[in-house]
């Protein structure tokens, strides 16, 4: 008996799960799974599990879950009055259906196993020839790509500008003061303000900035008394001269 249970345990390990064992037990009963006795099958399964548990307690959970469910099914099959009779019938049919599914899979696997197989019963050509050439000389360009590249370039350059502001290149009041002080002494008479502008000025903002800086510098020097300014008419040329020089001339 002990030897028999030992072999049962060994047998259990040879199965891929409770369903596998159930199918094997069912096959031992009948070829046609539709005609097997579910009750007999359940009793056989529970007997195997019981035998196995005597030897070893640590049975895998799925075996025990199946055993518990089959115990329930057995009780319903033996004493239908315990519950709705359909319950037991449905459960028995579910089990039979699952066994048929597994049986079909086994048969399909066996059918496939008997088919001539590639690499064993027949071989394909070992050295296929490749006649497809790849021409990578063309370009794939899209307008959207061109535009997004342009935006990316501008955005990157713009981001750099944020960190490195354009240097001030305008002629400052300080520059104008130095230049006026240096130049005004050499001019004998009233001279146009524009004559004191630095050379090579760009038109537009740089030139206008230089004019206003020179004017402010002139006003500052006039306030100090070293320079005189005059404008004969609105929007007319602004004239300036050295105070000391003119006094000397006037005197």
């Amino acid at each position, binding site marked *: 008996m002990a030897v028999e249970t030992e072999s049962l345990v060994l047998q259990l390990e040879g199965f891929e799960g409770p369903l596998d064992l159930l199918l094997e037990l069912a096959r031992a009963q009948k070829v046609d799974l539709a005609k097997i006795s579910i009750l007999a099958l359940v009793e056989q399964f529970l007997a195997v599990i019981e035998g196995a548990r005597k030897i070893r307690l640590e049975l895998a959970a799925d075996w025990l879950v199946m055993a518990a469910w089959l115990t329930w099914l057995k009780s319903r099959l033996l004493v239908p009055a315990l519950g709705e009779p359909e319950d037991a019938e449905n459960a028995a049919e579910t089990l039979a259906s699952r066994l048929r599914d597994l049986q079909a899979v*086994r048969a399909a696997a066996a059918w496939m*196993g008997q088919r001539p197989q590639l*690499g064993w019963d027949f071989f394909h050509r070992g050295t296929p020839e490749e006649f497809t050439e790849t021409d990578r000389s063309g370009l794939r360009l899209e307008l959207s790509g061109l535009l997004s590249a342009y935006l990316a370039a501008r955005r990157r350059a713009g981001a750099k500008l944020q960190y490195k502001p354009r240097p001030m290149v305008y002629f400052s009041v300080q520059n104008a003061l130095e230049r006026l002080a240096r130049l005004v002494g050499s001019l004998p008479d009233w001279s146009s303000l524009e004559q004191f502008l630095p050379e090579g000025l760009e038109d537009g903002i740089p030139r206008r900035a230089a004019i206003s800086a020179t004017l402010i510098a002139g006003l500052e020097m006039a306030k100090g008394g070293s320079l005189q300014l005059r404008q004969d008419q609105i929007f007319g040329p602004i004239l300036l001269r050295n105070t000391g020089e003119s006094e000397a001339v006037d005197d």
Partner: protein
Amino acid sequence: MIETDQNQALRLAEAVVFAATQPVTPRVLANLLPEDADVDAVMAALAALYAPRGVNLVQVAGGWLFRTAPDIAPALRKVVELPRRLPRVAMETLAIVAYHQPVTRTEIEEIRGASLSQTTLDLLLENGLVTPKGRRETPGRPTLWGTTPAFLAQFGLNSLRDLPRREELLIDPSGPSTAAAEAGAGA
């Protein structure tokens, strides 16, 4: 003259199928052969020509392919490197995918009543026999699995319809012991 044209069509068809790594579809053949050629007739003639030879023309996975004649296999196995045969678990899993595709891993496990090991899945993927076929739009969005053209080529099937129907499989004229032996042969 007609004789020559027919022969040239045969030569073209034979060359393209010989060179190919994949089954050559009727569409590819129709593009290649002269416009007035009857593809089916050409291929039937070619198949007849090669039937007695050591290399045969067969229809597999929806196309035409040359392969060695089955009776020669034992001699070839001595000189050609052999792949490992699929173990029983892999064979059963493959059968479930073939019959129930698209199918989730959980469904495969339910049908077999046992969990699907990574080794088995890896083996089937490595051999290019199964492939993901999208996901099921249920909670968890599980991957769906299906078979590939390589699966058809492996077993010399022209399409999945060439698999025996489930009902045919369940009719088992032999005894249970024979059935068990057959299941074992697949291992």
